[in-house]
């Protein structure tokens, strides 16, 4: 990432530069008087809220990791346990409009119509369908694609959503102003506005779990191992192995969002 503090990188006229150079000591003196604790970013950054070192034996280093997830829709049975686990783990509101992950059922009819349904995200299962005239039907789990080129981060006017060094897109709930730009920008419909905090919410890959060497709650809860979570840049990870052995696609590749959630042997109807 570039340096966010706009320092004087532009070429300036010599007169102005001389003037600034002369007035700099004055400005610094005033600044030091007005501000007892100057915003010295380099000092405050690495350990912003201390106190976690004695508890954790091995410090988590985000630059050693780069996470991704693969989904095998061929294994998904649409039981909705991932949605249930996600809502429990992350305190997602129980109303049927708020989901960090959800399961869709695609039903391709012989007449060319394809319908997509996700009643309450799939938590309570799916209602029976009439099989007459159905060509094929299958389940597709959806979640935030943790794009490497995320449109939601690009549009945030305040820098409240961002990509961590380990490739996860997070929301800063204390800094989010609730303008909903990111919700509009996300082509996967993966974000929503939390009804209580009025800030944007999304899947975090269970960031609080993965930094403790646990897998995300949805991966933990999937009874058929339809979701594989792991390191994208390590050849020996279960994720890399899965991606070597399967035909891998991403959702909406034409949008150049570069998702880090991959789908194996995806049906052409999935959008």
């Amino acid at each position, binding site marked *: 990432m570039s340096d966010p503090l706009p320092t004087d990188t532009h070429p300036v006229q010599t007169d102005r530069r001389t003037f600034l150079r002369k007035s700099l000591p004055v400005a610094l003196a*005033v600044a030091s008087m007005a*501000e007892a604790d100057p915003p010295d*970013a380099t000092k405050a950054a690495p350990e912003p809220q201390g106190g976690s070192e004695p508890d954790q034996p091995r410090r988590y280093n985000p630059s050693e990791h780069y996470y991704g997830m693969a989904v095998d829709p061929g294994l998904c049975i649409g039981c909705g346990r991932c949605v249930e686990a996600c809502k429990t783990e992350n305190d997602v509101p129980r109303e049927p409009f708020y989901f960090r992950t959800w399961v869709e059922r695609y039903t391709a009819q012989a007449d060319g119509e394809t319908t997509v349904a996700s009643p309450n995200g799939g938590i309570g299962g799916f209602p029976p369908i009439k099989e007459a005239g159905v060509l094929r039907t299958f389940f597709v789990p959806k979640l935030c694609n943790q794009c490497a080129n995320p449109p939601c981060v690009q549009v945030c006017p305040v820098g409240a959503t961002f990509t961590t060094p380990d490739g996860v897109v997070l929301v800063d709930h204390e800094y989010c102003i609730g303008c909903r730009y990111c919700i509009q920008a996300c082509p996967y419909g993966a974000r929503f506005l939390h009804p209580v905090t009025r800030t944007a919410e999304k899947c975090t890959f269970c960031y609080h779990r993965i930094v403790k060497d646990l897998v995300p709650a949805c991966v933990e809860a999937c009874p058929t*191992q339809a979701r594989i979570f792991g390191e994208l840049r390590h050849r020996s990870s279960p994720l890399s192995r899965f991606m070597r052995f399967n035909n891998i696609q991403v959702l909406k590749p034409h949008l150049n969002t570069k998702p880090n959630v991959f789908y194996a042997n995806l049906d052409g109807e999935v959008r």
Partner: protein
Amino acid sequence: MPQQVTRLVVLFGVMIAGLVAARSWLIPKTFGAIGHYRAAAIDSVTATKVKYAGHEACAACHPDVAALRVAGRHKSVACEVCHGPGAEHVESPSEKRLSAPRQRGYCPLCHGYDPGRPSGFPQIDPATHNPMRPCVSCHQAHAPETPREPEACGACHGSIARTHSVSNHALIACVRCHQTDKRHKVTPLLSRPTKPTQRAFCGQCHDREASSPKEISRVDLATHEPNYVCWQCHYPHFPEAK
């Protein structure tokens, strides 16, 4: 120094000082430390409480059940899928107890019949499968037994069996056309039955020269649409369909 320069210096000094003060007041601490965001936000996300303890946490205290589970067909189903989040239970085992879903509605979430589920996944119709009886009264949830081998093909291929049973081909056994290994009943996807590949297979009965009962409809295989195989036009499970 001329007076106007002094005034300008003071004016610019105040403006710059105001700017610096405003920046330090408005921009949060740690903003920009890593990227264009508040670095401390990562810590507030990380501070979220873990509720699912993970599949490795249970075996330490429940080794017998864990051993039973990993040897059975539910080996890929983590304990917390059915018993709920267990991080609190790991911390204070006697105060925060977990429950088990013993009611009938729970198991069909995975095992109720749905055409979208992968073929071979064990499924039942909850409306007709021993109605009202809790699943756990017959099935051991930690190590469910191998389902009894289906006796007839129709147990799994119901719609084909029903169509076939009212067709002109009703008396032809499935295995006459599909050579089926025993293992297909246990691992249906790993041992698939064969299908006829030659026109001559249908010709055994339907060719003009075939030595079959004369009620069977006949064609001259040599001239009857020689560019196609039979099942491209005729549905063998219901051949009279037009």
